[in-house]
């Protein structure tokens, strides 16, 4: 079938990218700085893509993604540092713990709409952060030192799985149900869709991958502190999703890559860095209010390109 061919193209392309980069890292062509930037980028993409499922696909305005990142980071750190579990197990359990946290947060709050939901999720994320702040077992404000275990390979595999699962989910009847909830909740309900179930499901899946990202995050930056997971972190993730184009997974990826590059590049201008960064944000939004890619995906462009007179085709 056509869809499965698409999958294989995607898979081969992904493996090629992975191999090329891995080769450059082990061959010493990419120094530590670049490989670390790539890892950072990968983690950010996972965060953006998982939030995209919640906001872009299901239309639930969550401002609490950093909370699930925190759960993943802390749980995985406890597992590797205190319980000496292998990293892979820590990654998985971190995802599951974050998904559970997603359920706990989602079930009461997803009945709220719009900004009320935003503030409730923000509140939950802050509560999560404050809980970690007050647990001495994980170091309180001083945080927890974590061994560096994240590698490009781990990052890539997790990223690949994240994208694959979310793309496949989106392009299924379940994903369509989520989009229907986004487009018109009342009509979705009237069409027999259990809107609460799908909202919570999307939220839990999104949280799961945020948790996985958290595990990679914790094991990449040597230390985790509650201060790293404040609401500004949630906003950073939100920016990726919106800047790329709400509803476009490709957009979320492109925006994350671009912003990470911009941010890295701006390190050379420490005093004006945030000024330029904020100007970039404002200008992009002013000139591309629908985000860099609007609702388009790479595959849409590909189709348009292969079928020049194909008009407006929309997949998903």
């Amino acid at each position: 079938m056509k869809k499965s061919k698409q999958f294989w193209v995607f898979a081969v392309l992904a493996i090629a990218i992975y191999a090329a980069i891995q080769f450059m890292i082990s061959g010493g062509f990419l120094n530590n700085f670049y490989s670390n930037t790539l890892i950072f980028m990968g983690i950010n993409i996972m965060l953006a893509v998982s939030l995209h499922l919640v906001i872009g696909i299901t239309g639930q305005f969550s401002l609490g993604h950093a909370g699930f990142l925190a759960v993943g980071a802390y749980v995985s750190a406890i597992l590797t540092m205190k319980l000496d579990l292998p990293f892979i197990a820590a990654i998985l359990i971190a995802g599951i713990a974050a998904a559970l946290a997603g359920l706990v947060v989602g079930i009461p709050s997803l009945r709220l709409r719009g900004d009320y939901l935003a503030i409730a999720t923000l509140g939950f994320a802050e509560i999560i952060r404050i809980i970690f702040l007050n647990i001495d077992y994980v170091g309180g404000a001083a945080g927890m030192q974590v061994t560096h275990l994240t590698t490009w390979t781990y990052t890539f595999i997790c990223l690949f799985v994240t994208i694959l699962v979310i793309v496949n989910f989106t392009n299924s009847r379940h994903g369509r149900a989520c989009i229907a909830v986004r487009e018109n909740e009342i009509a979705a309900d009237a069409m027999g869709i259990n809107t609460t179930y799908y909202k919570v499901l999307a939220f839990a899946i999104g949280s799961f991958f945020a948790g996985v990202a958290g595990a990679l995050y914790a094991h990449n930056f040597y230390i985790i502190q509650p201060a790293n997971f404040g609401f500004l972190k949630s906003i950073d993730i939100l920016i990726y999703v919106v800047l790329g184009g709400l509803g476009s997974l490709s957009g979320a990826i492109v925006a994350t890559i671009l912003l990470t590059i911009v941010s890295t590049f701006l390190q050379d201008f420490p005093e004006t860095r945030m000024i330029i960064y904020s100007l970039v944000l404002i200008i992009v939004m002013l000139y591309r209010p629908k985000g860099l890619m609007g609702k388009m995906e790479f595959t849409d462009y590909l189709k348009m390109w292969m079928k020049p007179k194909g008009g407006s085709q929309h997949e998903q």
Partner: protein
Amino acid sequence: GCSQDDKDGASGSKDSDEIKIGVNLELSGAVASYGTSEADGIQLAVDEINDDGGIDGKKIKLVKIDNKSDAAEATNAAIKLTTQENVVAIIGAATSGATVAQAQIANDNKTPLISPSGTSPTVTVNEKGEVNEFVFRTSFIDPFQGTVAANFAANDLGVKNVAIFSDNASDYSKGLAASFKEDFEKAGGKVVAEESYVAKDSDFRSTLTRIKSAKPEFIFIPGYYEEVGLIVKQAREMGIDVPLMGADGWDSPTLMDLAGADALNNTFTTNHYSSDDPDGAVKAFNDKFNEEYGKSPDAFNALGYDTVYLLKDAIERAGSVDSTKIKDALAETDGLDLVTGNYSVDENHHPIKSATILEYKDGEQVFNTKVNP
């Protein structure tokens, strides 16, 4: 770290007539005020040194990176400084957390890292108790000031029942509170109230009300002047008139403005130095800073400034810009006179500095006692 063996060979900057020093500070984000203050102090010192002909004829070139008060960014910045910029050493970060985030990188890349104000013991000694070979600090560690304050309260002020009001978001503050408590209880005193606040709060009245009803004779407030100024002011407004005491985090001319001279009467701090110390170096620094920035320096300015001189001394003694030699020289620093006091380093890379106890009297910081480690 397999690609790091080119460290000594290919790093072009090391043979040039410049010494590249990385600066990895909180220039934006939540604690930008600490980072920017230190950056000012650092810049002043570097300008001075360069105007004087540099270190062994080589000019210092700073490579500044803003870590946005975020540990992840700090890690990233440290990697950039070590692997891209090939700096000789890194100064930063202002907070312990962001410094710890770089410690491993400094060790792996054999680049000395000096935190001007990372006071937590874990900055230089990791959780397993091993010393981070390449990591140093300019400031005291927390326990030392806590001990000094506890002894001062118990012996000099002779109080028995005290309260502690610390900043839960800061490991600095928590560390001080813990060591104060331990030593004060050892000295036979009693802690009748232990309360916390969170940095960036502005209203402390409800907790102060609680403290007041515990009737302490003395309150230890280890925190940064931004909050302490408000705490002192609000405490006095609420009729709490017992002696208050803090540590070097209090040191800033702004504290006086925030709290008001009256409120600050009957308060004490431990500090590295006294800015009205007649000692020439301190006065010269004060004047120069005033001239350059149009304001009086605070502790962060001074620590940033001193960090550059600490490094300069090590490079001169190492006689080379080889990182390992600089590290060795840093570890042997002994009796170096800095603005923030006479500095030596112990085997845990903790500084051995004398502390001064200052008292605020009608808007003036007055020298009270000097305590040697």
